[in-house]
């Protein structure tokens, strides 16, 4: 991991191993939940991988009834909607991910601010990041 360049491919290899990787700036301490070679906060290049806890709160979400082509092909659609979310991680940054373990037929019961925890979904030969409400 230490030798990986800060790319999406390296980040996805982390997902495949059940790890949510981010990067932390060695200069200003800012954390990003996606890899990047330059710190967006201080513009420094002193970044290193960190394994994030995968715990956070639901910042925003949606239940998608009209999916893009890859998810249509996976069987999602009007009769089988899925949820997606923006999650604010306890380490500070946010990340977009699938939202599982919620009743997509009763989205009014899903609460912004709810604590969630990361899960790793196998979809074909890819691993997709998801979160599930805790408790």
């Amino acid at each position: 991991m230490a030798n990986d360049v800060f790319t999406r491919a390296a980040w996805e290899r982390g997902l495949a191993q059940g790890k949510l990787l981010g990067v932390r700036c060695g200069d200003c301490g800012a954390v990003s939940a996606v890899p990047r070679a330059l710190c967006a906060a201080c513009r420094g290049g002193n970044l290193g991988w960190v394994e994030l806890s995968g715990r956070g709160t639901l910042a925003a979400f949606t239940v998608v009834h009209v999916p893009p082509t890859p998810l249509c092909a996976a069987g999602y659609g009007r009769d089988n909607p899925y949820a997606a979310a923006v999650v604010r991680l306890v380490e500070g940054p946010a990340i977009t991910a699938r939202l599982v373990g919620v009743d997509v037929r009763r989205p009014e019961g899903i609460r912004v601010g709810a604590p969630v925890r990361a899960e790793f979904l196998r979809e074909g030969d890819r691993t997709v990041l998801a979160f599930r409400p805790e408790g």
Partner: protein
Amino acid sequence: MSGKLGRPVCLVGAGMSKFGAFPDKDSRDLFVEAFQDLRGSVDKGLDPGEIEAVYLGNFSSDLFEHQGHLAPILADWVGLTPRAALRLEDACASGGVTLRQAVLAVAAGAYEVVLAAGVERMTALPTEAVTDTLATAGDVLYEFPAGFTFPGFYAAMATAYAARYGMPYEALWEVARKNHLHASRNDKAQFPMTIREIMDRRIAKAREKGGPVPGWKDEREFLRDPGANPPVAWPLRLFDCSPITDGAAAVLVVAEEVARRFTDRPVRVLGTGQASDACLYGREDLTSLRAAREAAAQAYTAAGVKPSRIRLAEVHDCFTIAEVLAIEDLGFFPPGQGWRATVDGATRWDGPLPVNTSGGLKAKGHPVGASGVAQAVELWKQLRGEAGARQVPGDPDVALAHNVGGTGQTCVVHILGRG
């Protein structure tokens, strides 16, 4: 960055094609239609030979029509070669960005007369492919695999906003009802009809067919019916979303010193601003667009006016929630109050601050690369008192256009005034 223009710049002509779904028309046909409409709008006539450059806003002719390198083709289609012709892309803000770059080029003295146009031909693709294409305005590495679609992004912002400010989702329908009301007075609109008229039409059609007749008593019942108004990305439903549209728009941008050659009633560009932001996951706050606040601040400073001086605005209502965020980000209403102001009718054409008198993206239609330019076309008409049945009363003299790209990674704001 003072935002001041190097020299004063005016609009002296404005036109647009009919917006809608036109299976037989390619983007060049839509562009020619807008160009001809613009020619008719120039009071003292336009010799196209006076146009020195063509700036074109277009999001994705590559994916929508499998056509790249669009600008020279369009220049040729109206006989403007060998003039410089170039395309600018910032997703749904392509049109506003194009207008801004034309204004800056004229202000810098590079040209005196520039055609700023926008075009998008979207309806040739099936809905899923349009969904894929629009999603490329977000982050295809981290947002698309998470399952986000464009309606999904704004739906998520709606949940964050509702959670913070206690907005009931049905309040968003007031944006749609208002913008359809405005569009019912705009014959260029894709849906020149109120939601009530759409409902009545469906009832009439059901009667004609002899099938079961829906029992909707009013627009609210119609909008509550998931059959008539199905969810697209909860909490947003069909009538919360702008449609898929074919259309083009164009304005003629000139140095003020030559404006009188074209008209004695030019519209002046008082201020322009543009800003950028991270994708949705890179933001601290999902209930406001930082790029919109920043672009607006630049434009207000350049124009030397405060939000209270604006008499009407065209804002980027790609989804109903987007209009609520816009009227707060622009400083018209305090954070959390935009939805109430809308419910109270403050933004109707006859209210204290008319918003989207054209029908907005919601009902006029949203051919993405054209939308920012079409906003300027509407303000041109309103500021010259030529908006017909939807003319804002009281002789408006200062107006604002707000055009967003993606989920707010780009925002461009223009303030226009009567010359």
